[in-house]
């Protein structure tokens, strides 16, 4: 009876989380898209073409150049953190696809490695929020919460993949069941359920938190505007004051 209730709760919560995540993200990102940018704000040195802006944003997202200028140690921690996160997310496609693409399967050997790296990077980022006086001063509860949640996800994920094994078949049946709207009971494996639950919490938390930097960076006018003020015929128009 308890088990059935828990199943129902988790399945329901999974759908709520998926909805909250996608709807929340949509509302926020569309909000950024539709809010007008009245004045040109590109940060010097700025590219003068749209292609240049694409290159700038790609660079921002892949190698964090501004952070590199700012703080080398933090750059290492943050870049490794995000690289490992990307690798882990990519590898997790094996739970959401059937058949599983070869590229995802081939990451088998490296998967645990990235898990540990991510865990260590999370500990570093958390630790610096306590150990460095300036960072301690400026950190607030949501900053610690996000790292703790991610750390719990990492820890439970590593444990359940390699040390307290859960049957892959049961996991895939559960996930694919959810995705096809024919839900089945989750595996009766507490550690897996914890991992899954923490991930759902993260999904709900995401659109209400600073994790929005993931999509928001593309809407930062300092980075996404070309400098075309001195291109004839390219007057920058303020959407709410277009004909002064």
């Amino acid at each position, binding site marked *: 009876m308890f088990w059935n209730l828990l199943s129902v709760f988790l399945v329901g919560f999974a759908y709520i989380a998926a909805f909250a995540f996608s709807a929340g993200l949509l509302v926020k990102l569309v909000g950024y898209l539709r809010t007008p940018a009245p004045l040109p704000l590109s940060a010097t040195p700025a590219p003068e073409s749209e292609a240049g802006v694409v290159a700038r944003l790609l660079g921002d997202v892949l190698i964090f150049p501004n952070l590199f200028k700012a703080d080398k140690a*933090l750059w290492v921690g943050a870049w490794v953190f995000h690289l490992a996160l990307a690798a882990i997310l990519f590898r997790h496609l094996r739970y959401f696809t059937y058949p599983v693409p070869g590229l995802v399967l081939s990451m088998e050997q490296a998967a645990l490695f990235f898990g540990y790296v991510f865990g260590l990077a999370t500990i570093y980022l958390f630790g610096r929020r306590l150990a460095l006086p300036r960072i301690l001063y400026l950190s607030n509860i949501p900053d610690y919460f996000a790292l703790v949640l991610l750390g719990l996800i990492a820890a439970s994920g590593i444990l359940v993949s390699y040390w307290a094994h859960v049957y892959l078949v049961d996991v895939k049946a559960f996930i694919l069941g959810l995705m096809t709207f024919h839900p089945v009971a989750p595996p009766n494996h507490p550690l897996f359920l914890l991992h899954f639950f923490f991930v759902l919490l993260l999904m709900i938390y995401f659109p209400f938190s600073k994790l929005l930097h993931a999509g928001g960076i593309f809407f930062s006018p300092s980075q996404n505007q070309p400098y075309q003020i001195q291109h004839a015929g390219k*007057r920058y128009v303020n959407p709410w004051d277009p004909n*002064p």
Partner: protein
Amino acid sequence: MAKFDETPILKDPAVEGVLPPPDIREHATAQVRCWPSKEKDTLAIDLPSERLPDWQAKAIQKFGELLDKNKALRVFMDICVRCGACADKCQFFLGTGDPQNFPVARAELLRSVYRRYFTPGGQLFPGLNGAADLDETMLERWYTYFYQCSECRRCSVFCPYGIDTAEITAAAREIMASVGVSTKYVTEVVAKVYETGNNLGIPPLAWIDNCEFLDEDVEEETGLPIRFPVDQEGADILLVPPSADNFANVDTMIAYGKLFHFLGISWTTSTYCNEGGNFGLFLNYQNLKKVNNRILEAARMLKVKTIIWGECGHAWRAGIFTPTLSGSMDDFDPPYPYHISQYVYKLLQAGVFEGKLDKSANDHLVVTYHDPCNPARAGQLLDEPRAIIRASCNHFIEMPSETIREKTFCCGAGGGLLTDEVMAIRMAGGKPRALAVKHTQANYLATICAICKAQLPVVMQYWDVPVEVGGTLQLLTNALKF
């Protein structure tokens, strides 16, 4: 310099011209505050003169409006991850140790209020979400610390997402102004523009008088009929200088005259608009636009072909908004804002000064160049001034690379801070720049901004750096063989 309380200022030395981040000293600058605005000025610029009785509700309403009208503000409220990359980059922190001058902490003053009133987390569980009420204490902190930011954008260079704290400061100031909270210096300057055409309150007759004086004086000195025309209809070029060029930085004004005389080009200034420096830039959009409109109005009144912006930082920052704020410039050539440094740079490249520049005329100078914030971080003007200096001088030395170009340190008095009641924050803010100059052992500090030319001599004297501060164009005209 009049005596002032120096306790906010840290006296630790630099290392190889670069200031290491100091230890935190909470509340170090909490008492450094601009004087509040005067009624005659706020009336003149269409702002409430006293704090409105329902200021809290009105302020939150205004905040909501700004969030809907400014993508930058909306995005920057959400995406800061408090990584701290910006924290030790602000000169006002580096010079004082006050952690409220971390750009991230300054932004949190606005962001915590944003969360409280505009996010579900902040409305339901403010304590857990870093949300705060907009109460008396918060307003006081806003007034103190948003007028300890010079809107120089140095922080945005180091932020992974380019969060521009200047936009956040500008929004906070606009909210405060809308409920009757603004500073004397900024509002009185904007009011003076509407009354006299410039920030210093120089009436038209005084401007004309000064130009006529320069006509005589410069001809006597050079033997050449160099003129400083005013309100000349049909001139080729309308020059929009900072008014300080005809008052304090006269060498720059003389350089403009010599340049145009050499080129044989007719030019003029306008008594309707003899000010590039737009203080509406750090007050609110309405005044930013109204001040800027005067430039095109003057140019059309005088039927000039080209508008050139002079050596002024805020002017260039607002100037590049001109087609957006004030309308198409298609009736001018070029049909967009144009800076004197770019104009001269083009001429240099075209060989106009070939064989006419004697660099040895500046051999007594060891020159270093201070990038003013606005040209360097919004205006794409990094190389042109340097090219002008290199063409005119034999001895040019750059300051440490992390203190120049887009990473330049603010002089410490931009954004409405060039006022004596905040001398402590001005001297502290100017410290990183002063120590970088000291490291070069230069004796001439060239720059292209009138606020910098007013602030830097005081800063250099305070930090014991024996250097002369001056414009860039005058180095070229000093070397010109007519």
